[in-house]
Structure formats: C-alpha cells, structure tokens
C-alpha cells in the first residue's frame, strides 16, 4: 500500500475560495513534500517540510505537518483557475531517506 494517502481524491471549488487537502502516512519520515502535476506533464515541487517543522508558507500555499498524527495538509488560498491540477504528497522515510514515495493525489478543479 502507499506510504502517503491524500484526501479528498477530488475537489471542486470556485475561483477565490480556499482549497484544503490532506495527506496521511504510516512510517516515520525525514520530510514530507508536496507536488503539483498538470495533466499529462511531469510533477513540479511546491514545498518541503521537515519532520521538526510544523508549518511552512510559500506564496498562497500553506503546509502543516503533525508527526504525532502522521498527517499533513496543503492549503491553497484565494484559488485561481490556473491552480487546477493534481496535487501529491511524497514522503522521504526516516529509515530509507533515498526513497521518495507518493500518494494517490488530489485532483483540484477551480472553476472561474
């Protein structure tokens, strides 16, 4: 089974609204990363949060990490139609830092 699992699988919102998606994982990690994928393209890195960090911001993106619950959230504020994409979390395991495993992703549709 996947190390990381995103929730929800799909999300549809209006432009200007916030979008929140969650990621849960099973094994202790060194860091957790969020990526974006436009349809049929490669993934683009958004944010990396280390296991000793609790929150990180980048522009309209806010990521939280709760290692006690083994979960993370990605918040996109004031969404735009261009934010329409799939978003994935990925974990680098504490026991195997060279591995990078991905969850199933959240498909976000931002309607203009």
């Amino acid at each position, binding site marked *: 089974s996947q190390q990381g699992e995103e929730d929800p699988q799909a999300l549809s919102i209006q432009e200007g609204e916030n979008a929140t998606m969650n990621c849960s994982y099973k094994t202790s990690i060194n860091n957790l990363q969020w990526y974006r994928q436009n349809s049929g393209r490669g*993934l*683009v890195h958004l944010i990396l949060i280390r296991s000793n960090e609790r929150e990180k911001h980048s522009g309209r993106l806010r990521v939280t990490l709760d290692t006690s619950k083994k979960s993370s959230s990605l918040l996109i504020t004031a969404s735009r139609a261009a934010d329409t994409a799939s978003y994935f979390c*990925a974990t680098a395991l504490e026991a195997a830092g*060279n591995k*990078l*495993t*991905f*969850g199933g*992703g959240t498909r976000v549709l931002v309607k203009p």
Partner: protein
Amino acid sequence: SQTIHQWPATLVQPVGSPLSLECTVEGTSNPNLYWYRQAAGRGLQLLFYSVGIGQISSEVPQNLSASRPQDRQFILSSKKLLLSDSGFYLCARRWQQNTEAFFGQGTRLTVV
C-alpha cells in the same frame, strides 16, 4: 541546471516487444535517480531508484529492469512488454536524500 531529458514523449509498442526508455540529467554529479510509473488518474508508483553508477534498488517485482551505466544516465528496460506495462513513465532526480525531486516530462507508453 536541473534539466532532465526524457524521450520519447509518446510510444506505442506491441505486446512482447522490447522497451528501452532513457533518462539523462544535467547538473550536480552523483544524483539520486528514480523511475516512476503512473496509471491514468492515479498516483506515482516507485519502480526503481539509484544512488550511484551500477546501484539499482527495485521496488516492485515485474518484467521491467533498470540500469545506470553512467552517472547522469538512467535506463528503463523490458525484454517483453505486457499490456499491463502501459502507463506514464516519469524519471526524477534528487541531488541527495531528503531534498526535493525534479521530474522529466514523462513518456506515455501504450502497449497494444
């Protein structure tokens, strides 16, 4: 530069034919290299990763293999393709463990 070259962009191959997908990367020497496969609308499945020349870790038993003949070259191969090998294949690099990954644009393989 974090440029990753992946080709071809699309490929249609008959069942039972061989496969060779090549990924070459630019930038820092001795990167970690990865092959992922993505089924339509799904997450990324880690197939192989490599921390150095000739060093390959296999994550999923299957009829695929990987090789790293040079520091910046990672090759995914199969002797005989199956229908189930169809998917979107992505190559990625990290300059060391616990850092973000950079992805190529992917190869969409259809086995017919």
